[in-house]
C-alpha cells in the first residue's frame, strides 16, 4: 500500500516536472507515454524505476567527481595522497551494484513473464509486414485488408513536394485503412512478414515485435479505453521504412461487432469504423474462402453471384463512381468480371498509387538510385503484353510477386493503367480472365 502511494506520488512529481518543460517548450512529451494497456503501465513504471535508480547512482558518482575537481586541485595547492589500493572497498563496490541489479532484475522479469503470456486470448489478429504497408487479417472473421500511408502524407513526403508537412493532419502517422480492435478484450497478435524484416510498434500498447519472414511472432494487447493510437514500423526495411505507419482504432465491443458485420458484407469496400460507411480508397478487403472462415455468417450464394450489380458508395465522388466496387471476393466471381477502359484505368490508378508508386514513383519515372526501372516509356509496359503480365504476377529481384497479393481484377486494371499512362499508349485493355489464364 505504502509502495503504491509512493509510486503514485512519484509519478505525479515526474509528470508535473516534465510537463513543465515539455508543455512550455516542445511539441512532444519528453518522457515515455504511460499508454493504454496493463502492460504499458507496467513498462512505464519499470522505466521510471530504473531511471531513478540511475539518477541516484549518478548523483553519488558525479558528486564525488565534482568534489575532487573543485577541491583536489593542484592550482588550489592541494597535496596529492598516494593511496592506490584497498581490497575492502573494491569488494564493497562490486557487491553493491550487484544488489542494485538484482533489485532491478526481479520486477523486470515479472513484467516480462506477463508480457510473453499470450495464452487464452479472446481473439486473434494476424499482422503481416510488406514493403511498405501492413496487412491485417481478422482470422476469426474471414477478412483481411492492407493498410498503407494516407494519400495526403504520401504526397507531402515526396522529394521537394512543395507541400508543408505541417499542413497535413497526422503527417506520416495516418493510413487509409486503420486496424480496428475492441476494448477490454485480450487480443493475440500474430506477427509475420512477407519480404524483409519489419517491426510492429505501437508505443501506447508497449508492443514492439519484429515481423520476420518465415516466423510468426506473438504479442497480446488489452486496450483500456476507446481511441485512435498511432505507431510505426521500427525496423529498417528499405526505402519506405518511414512511410508505413500504424493506426489502431479501439472501439467498444458493440461498436466493434457492428464494424465486423459491416466489413463482412461490404463486398470489398473498407468500412470506416467511425461512420460505418464504406470508403473507396486503397486496396480492397479480401475475404477468406468459406472453409477457412470460422465465425463469419455464411454469405448467401445468391448474393455472391450477383456480379453485375456493383454496390455503389453512398455519396460517390466522380472518380469513385467510375471505379466500380468489386464484388465479394470469391476468385471465380472476380474472374467473371470484365473491365471497360474507363473503369480499368480509374481502378488501375488507385492500385498503382497504393502499391506500385512506392518504388516506381507516382509519376512513373522509376527510381534509378534503387535500380527500379521507369514505367513511363519503359521497355516492359511498351513491350509484349504476356511478358508484362508474367513479370507483375511472378516478380523479379526486388519486384514482388504481385500475383500473391492482388486479385485478378486489380492486376488487370493496374497493367492496363501502366500500358496507357505516363505517356505510354499501348491501347491494351487487360481483362481479369487473361490474368487467370496467365497464373
Amino acid at each position: 500500500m505504502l509502495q503504491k502511494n509512493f509510486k503514485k506520488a512519484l509519478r505525479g512529481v515526474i509528470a508535473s516536472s516534465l510537463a513543465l518543460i515539455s508543455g512550455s517548450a516542445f511539441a512532444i512529451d519528453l518522457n515515455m507515454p504511460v499508454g493504454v494497456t496493463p502492460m504499458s503501465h507496467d513498462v512505464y513504471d519499470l522505466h521510471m524505476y530504473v531511471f531513478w535508480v540511475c539518477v541516484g547512482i549518478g548523483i553519488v558518482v558525479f558528486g564525488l567527481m565534482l568534489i575532487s575537481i573543485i577541491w583536489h586541485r593542484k592550482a588550489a595547492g592541494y597535496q596529492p595522497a598516494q593511496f592506490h589500493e584497498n581490497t575492502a572497498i573494491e569488494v564493497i563496490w562490486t557487491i553493491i551494484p550487484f544488489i542494485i541489479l538484482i533489485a532491478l532484475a526481479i520486477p523486470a522479469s515479472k513484467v516480462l513473464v506477463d508480457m510473453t503470456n499470450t495464452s487464452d486470448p479472446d481473439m486473434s489478429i494476424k499482422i503481416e509486414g510488406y514493403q511498405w504497408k501492413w496487412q491485417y487479417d481478422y482470422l476469426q472473421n474471414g477478412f483481411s485488408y492492407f493498410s498503407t500511408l494516407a494519400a495526403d502524407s504520401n504526397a507531402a513526403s515526396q522529394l521537394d513536394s512543395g507541400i508543408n508537412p505541417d499542413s497535413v493532419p497526422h503527417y506520416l502517422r495516418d493510413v487509409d485503412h486503420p486496424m480496428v480492435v475492441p476494448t477490454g478484450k485480450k487480443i493475440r497478435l500474430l506477427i509475420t512478414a512477407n519480404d524483409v524484416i519489419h517491426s510492429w510498434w505501437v508505443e501506447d500498447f508497449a508492443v514492439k515485435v519484429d515481423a520476420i519472414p518465415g516466423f510468426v511472432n506473438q504479442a497480446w494487447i488489452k486496450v483500456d479505453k476507446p481511441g485512435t493510437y498511432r505507431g510505426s514500423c521500427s525496423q529498417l526495411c528499405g526505402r519506405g521504412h518511414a512511410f508505413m505507419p500504424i493506426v489502431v482504432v479501439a472501439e467498444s465491443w458493440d461498436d466493434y461487432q457492428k464494424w465486423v458485420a459491416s466489413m463482412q458484407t461490404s463486398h470489398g469496400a473498407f468500412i470506416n469504423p467511425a461512420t460505418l460507411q464504406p470508403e473507396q480508397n486503397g486496396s480492397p478487403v479480401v475475404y477468406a474462402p468459406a472453409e477457412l472462415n470460422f465465425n463469419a455468417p455464411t454469405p448467401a450464394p445468391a448474393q455472391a453471384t450477383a456480379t453485375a450489380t456493383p454496390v455503389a458508395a453512398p455519396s460517390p465522388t466522380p472518380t469513385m463512381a467510375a471505379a466500380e466496387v468489386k464484388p465479394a471476393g470469391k476468385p471465380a466471381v472476380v474472374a467473371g468480371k470484365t473491365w471497360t477502359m474507363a473503369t480499368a484505368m480509374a481502378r488501375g490508378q488507385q492500385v498503382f498509387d497504393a502499391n506500385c508508386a512506392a518504388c516506381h514513383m507516382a509519376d512513373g519515372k522509376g527510381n534509378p538510385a534503387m535500380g527500379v526501372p521507369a514505367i513511363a516509356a519503359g521497355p516492359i509496359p511498351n513491350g509484349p503484353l504476356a511478358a508484362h503480365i508474367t513479370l507483375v504476377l511472378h516478380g523479379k529481384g526486388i519486384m514482388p510477386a504481385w500475383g500473391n497479393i492482388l486479385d485478378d481484377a486489380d492486376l488487370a486494371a493496374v497493367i492496363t493503367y501502366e500500358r496507357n499512362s505516363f505517356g505510354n499508349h499501348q491501347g491494351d485493355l487487360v481483362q481479369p480472365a487473361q490474368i487467370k489464364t496467365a497464373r
Partner: protein
Amino acid sequence: MHNTAVAHAHHAEHPSGIWRWITTTNHKDIGTLYLCFSLLMFFVGGAFAMLIRAELFKPGMQLMDPLFFNEMATLHGLVMIFGAIMPAFVGLANWMIPMMVGAPDMALPRMNNWSFWILPFAFILLLSTLFMPGGAPASGWTMYAPLMLQTGTAFPFTIFAIHLMGISSVMGAINIIATILNLRAPGMTLMKMPLFVWCWLITAYLLIAVMPVLAGAVTMELMDKYFGTSFFNAAGGGDPLLFQHVFWFFGHPEVYIMVLPAFGIISEIIPTFSRKPLFGYTSMVYAVASIAFLSFIVWAHHMFTVGMPLAADLFFMFTTMLIAVPTGVKVFNWVATMWRGALSFETPMLFAIAFVFLFTIGGFSGVMLALVPADWQYHDTYFVVAHFHYVLVTGSAFAIMGAVYYWLPKWTGHMYNETLAKWHFWLSVISINVLYFPMHFLGLAGMNRRLPDYPVQFTDLNQIVSIGGFVFGVSQLLFVACIILCVRGGKKAEAKVWEGALGLEWTLPSPPPYHSFTEPPAANLIWAHPYQND
C-alpha cells in the same frame, strides 16, 4: 671495402618521400599512417552524418531520396566503426606499445605494413559503391538479411571490403599480441604492464575471436545471393534470424573492441594529471578481462524484439546487467584515482573527465536498455541512437582525442597550442550534448532510428539535434588545426612531457629515436606502476 660501406649506409637509411610511407616497417611511421587515415575517415563519416542531420532538420524530404538517406546512414556507421575508431586505436597501439613495453619496434614489422596498406583499398572499394548503379549498401551497418540481399551492384563490393577490413584487423591484432608477449623489457611482468597495454592485449584477442565470425556471416549472405544457398531465406528452409545471431556474436565483442582501448587510455591520463597512482590496478585488469568474457554471452540483447523464448530473453537480460558490475568497478576506480589527487586540467585531462562523465551516462542508458520489457519501448528508437553515441563518441572518440593531445608532444617534440586545444574541447563537449542528449527524448516520444522523414511533432528537437551536430562537425576542424600546428612547430617538449607522467615512453626523448629501445631499458626505469615494486 667501398661496397660494404655503401651497403651498410644504405641499410641504415630509409627511403624518403612517398616510398618511405609505402615501404615502411617502422612502428612509428605505421602508427602515423593509421592515425592520419582514421582522421580522414572521421571526416568522411562525419560528412555523411552532416548530410543526415541536414535532411532531418525539417520534416519532409528536401535534399535526397529516402534510399540515399539509408545509404548515408549505412556508410556513416561502417566508415566510423571500421575506418575511424578501430584504425585510430591500432595507430595508438603501434606508436605506444613498443615504447611502453621497452621494445625497439613491433614484433612483426612487415606484416604491420601490410595490415595498414590493406585498409585504403578496403575503403576505396566500400566508398566506390556510392557511384554504382543502385547506389551504396542501404541496409544499415548491421547488414541484416533479407534486406541486405536487395542491394544492387554494391553488394559484392561491400562484402569484399568487409573481408579486407577483417583481414587487416586480425593481422594487426596478431602483431600486437606477439609484441606484448615477446618484446617486453626484462623485469616487466604482465602485472607491471601499463593499463593501456593490458587493455589492448585483451582487445586483440577479442579481434581474433570475432572478426572471422563477421567474415562468415557476410560470406553466407554472398552465398545466398550468388550461389543459391538459403542460409537466411525462410522460403528455402533458412532462417533470417540466423544472420542476426551470427552478426551480433561478432557485434557485441566489437563494441568492447571499440571501448577497451579507450579504458586503457583513460587509465593512463587520469593518474598523470591527478599526480597519484592509478587506484586498484589489479581490479582494473580483472574488470577488463571480465568485460571481455561477458561480451561473448550477451549478444542477443541487440535482438530482444525478434521473439526469442522467454528463457533466452531472461538469460540475455541477466548477463547484460552483469556487465554493469565490472564497468562500474572501472568508473569507481577512476573516481578514486582522482579523489585527493592534485588535479590539473590540461586538454587530455579534460577529455578524460568528459569521458568518465559521458560514458557513464551511456552506461546508465545501457542498464535501462538491458531490461527486456523496457527495451521493447526503447529498441530501434533514438534512445538507442543516443545510447551508443554516448559510449562511442563521447566514449571512444573522446578517449582517442585525449590520447592524441596526451602523446602528441612526445611524437612531434613540440607542445600543442593549449588555448586552441581547449577551444576544441569546450566546443566539442557542449555541442555534442546538444547533439545527443535530446535524442533520448525523441526516442522516448516514439521516433524510430534510421528515418529519412518524421512526423511534425518531432521537428523542434530534431532542429536542436542538427544544430548540435553542425557545431560539433565544424569544431573538429580545430582538432586538425591543433595537430598541424603542433607537427610544424611549437614550444620544445621535454622527455617527460607531463609532470605526473609515469611509464617507459617518458624516458625516451621527444620526439623519440626511429627505433624506440635498441637496448632494453634499465630495470629501475620500469615504473609504470611503482607500487607494484613495493
